[in-house]
C-alpha cells in the first residue's frame, strides 16, 4: 500500500522492499497454514459443534418420554442437576474408579516393566503374553471376566475358592465397581508397562557405570537414578491413562449396566439422555457440567504434558 502511494519516478527502495517482504511473509504464513486447515476444520466441526448444540438444549425443558415441546427454563436444569444425589454419587464413583485404576495399573505396570527389563529365556514371548490384555476389545474384556472368571456358577475364580474349601462369592454383584476396576487394571497395566519399558531401555549406560564405580548398591541405584529417570514416563502414563479411564463406558455397560454403585459420570449422563431417561434438557445440562469439569482436569493434565515437552526441548 505504502509503495503504491509513492509518486512515480522517485521510488523509495526501502519502503518498496518492506512491502515486498510483508507480502511475502503474508503469503508464506498462509502457505504454512494451508496443510493444517483440513484437519483443523474437520476437528472443530465434528468435536466442537455438538457442544454448541448442547448449550442450547440445556436451557430448555425437553423430554421425549412423555413427549413435551421444549420450553425455555433458563438455568433450572443446572440448579436441579447439582442437587441430584445420584449425580453426586456418580461423581464419587468416577473419582474412585479412575484414580484407583490409574494408580494400581501404574504400580503393576512398573513392576512388570522392571521384570521384563532383563535377559531371560523366552523374554519376547513373555512380553507378548503380557501386552495381550491391552489389545482385547473392552466389551470382550468385560464379558469374559464377568462370565468366565467372576461368575459364581461357572467362573474360574469361584472354582478355585471352592477348591480350597471356601464359599463362593458373587463378585460382580457384591462389589460391582471393584470388579470393573479389576478388569480395567488387567487391561491398562500392560499399557503402563509398555511406556515404562520404553523409559527403562533409554537409561544411559554411562550414568549407571558411574554409579557402579562409586559402589552404589542396587536399591539405591534404583531409588536415586532409575526412578527419577522414569518420572516423565510415569507422568505420561498417568495422563494418557486418565484421559481414557475417565470415560469408561463399555465395561460398565456389559458387566453391571450401571448397577449399584458402579455408575460413573459418563454412564450417568448417558442414562439421562438416549440411554433410557430421554430427558434431553436435563441431560444436556449434565453434559455441560461434565465438559467444564473435564476442562479443569485437562488444563492440569496438559500442563504436565507441556512440561514433558519443554524438558524434551531443553535436552
Amino acid at each position, binding site marked *: 500500500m505504502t509503495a503504491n502511494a509513492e509518486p512515480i519516478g522517485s521510488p523509495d527502495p526501502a519502503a518498496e522492499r518492506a512491502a515486498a517482504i510483508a507480502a511475502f511473509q503474508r503469503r508464506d504464513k498462509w502457505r504454512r497454514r494451508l496443510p493444517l486447515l483440513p484437519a483443523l476444520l474437520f476437528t472443530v466441526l465434528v468435536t466442537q459443534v455438538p457442544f454448541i448444540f448442547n448449550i442450547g438444549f440445556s436451557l430448555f425443558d425437553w423430554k421425549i418420554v412423555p413427549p413435551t415441546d421444549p420450553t425455555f427454563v433458563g438455568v433450572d436444569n443446572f440448579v436441579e442437576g447439582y442437587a441430584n444425589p445420584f449425580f453426586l454419587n456418580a461423581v464419587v464413583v468416577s473419582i474412585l474408579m479412575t484414580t484407583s485404576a490409574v494408580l494400581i495399573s501404574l504400580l503393576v505396570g512398573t513392576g512388570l516393566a522392571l521384570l521384563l527389563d*532383563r535377559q*531371560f*529365556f523366552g*523374554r519376547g514371548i513373555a512380553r507378548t503374553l503380557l*501386552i495381550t490384555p491391552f489389545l482385547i476389545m473392552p466389551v470382550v474384556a468385560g464379558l469374559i471376566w464377568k462370565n468366565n472368571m467372576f461368575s459364581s456358577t461357572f467362573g474360574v475364580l469361584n472354582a478355585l475358592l471352592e477348591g480350597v474349601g471356601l464359599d463362593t462369592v458373587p463378585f460382580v454383584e457384591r462389589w460391582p465397581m471393584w470388579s470393573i476396576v479389576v478388569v480395567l487394571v488387567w487391561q491398562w497395566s500392560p499399557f503402563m508397562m*509398555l511406556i515404562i519399558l520404553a523409559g527403562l531401555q533409554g537409561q544411559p549406560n554411562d550414568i549407571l557405570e558411574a554409579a557402579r564405580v562409586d559402589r552404589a548398591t542396587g536399591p539405591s541405584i534404583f531409588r536415586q537414578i532409575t526412578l527419577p529417570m522414569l518420572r516423565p514416563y510415569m507422568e505420561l502414563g498417568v495422563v494418557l491413562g486418565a484421559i481414557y479411564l475417565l470415560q469408561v463406558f463399555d465395561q460398565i455397560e456389559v458387566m453391571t449396566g450401571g448397577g449399584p454403585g458402579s455408575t460413573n459420570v459418563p454412564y450417568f*449422563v448417558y442414562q439421562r439422555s438416549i440411554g433410557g431417561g430421554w430427558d434431553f434438557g436435563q441431560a444436556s445440562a449434565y453434559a455441560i457440567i461434565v465438559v467444564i469439569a473435564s476442562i479443569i482436569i485437562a488444563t492440569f493434565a496438559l500442563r504436565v504434558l507441556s512440561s514433558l*515437552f519443554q524438558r524434551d526441548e531443553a*535436552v
Partner: protein
Amino acid sequence: MTLTARDRVLRGQSRWGTAALGTVTWLVAALFFFPVFWMVLNSFKTEAVANASPVLFFEPTLERWEAVTEVTRGLLGFSEAFTNSFVIVIVSTLLVLVLAIPAAYALSINPIKNWRDVLFFFISTKFLPIVAAILPLWIIARDLGILNSQLVLIILYTAMNLPLAVWMLNSFFGEVPRELIEAAQMDGTGLFGQIKDVMLPIVAPGVAATALLCFIFAWNEFFLAVQLNPVDSSTVPVWVTSNVSTRGNFLAKLSAASTLAVLPVVIAGWIAQKRMIRGLSMGAIK
C-alpha cells in the same frame, strides 16, 4: 531391545538372580494371559460343558464356532459385522492419515508460528467426554439421515483418532534432520520430491505405528457404534454383545464370538509390539 552382558552387569543383574526373576516373570505373564486362554478354551466346549464347574480337559468340538458364524437372515451376522468393521475401520484410518500427515507437516517440518497451541488444541479434544456429545450427534445424524449407516461411524472414528495421529506424527516428523531437507532444497528438489525421497523413508515406520493404533482404537470402539448404528450395518463389538442371551446358555458361544472379534487386533498388535512401544510413548520423551 536386547541387553548385552555389559548392560546386565551395569544393571546389577546376576545370572542366577536373572534366572529366578525370569521364572517369576513367566508366572505373572501366564496369569495375565489366563483369561484370554480360558476364553479360547471355552470356545471349543459344548454349552453343557462350559456351563458347569470349570474343567481343563474335555472333548473339543467346533460346534459353537459353527453356531456363531452361521447366517441368520435379518440379524447382524458374523460376516456382515466383519465386513462393516473392516470397511469402517480401514476407510476411517486412511482418512485420518490423509488429514493428519499434512497437518503434522505444518506443525513440525515447516511449522506455523503458534504450532504448540494448535497441537494442544488437538489433544485437548480428547479430554472432552464423548458421552457429552452423544445427544447432539444423535440428533444431527438423524436429521442428516445417516443414523444406522457406515458413514456416521467413519466420520466419528476419523474425528476420534485424528488428535492422536497428529500428535504422534508430529513427534515422528520432528526426527527428520533439518539439514537433510535443507540440502534437498539447495539441490532444487521440489516439495513433492522432498516428501517422497527425504521424509517418507524416515517417517514410514512412524506412520505405520500411527495407522496401527488408529486401527486398534476404531476396531474396539463400542459406544458410538451401539448408539448411532446398532442394527444391520453395525460393527464387530455390537455383534459380540448380541451373543449374550437372557434365555439359555451362551458361555461357549460367547467365547467363540469373542475369540473371533479380538483376533485381528491381537495379531496386528503381536506383530507390531516393538513399534507400539515407540508409538505409545509418542516420542514425546526421547
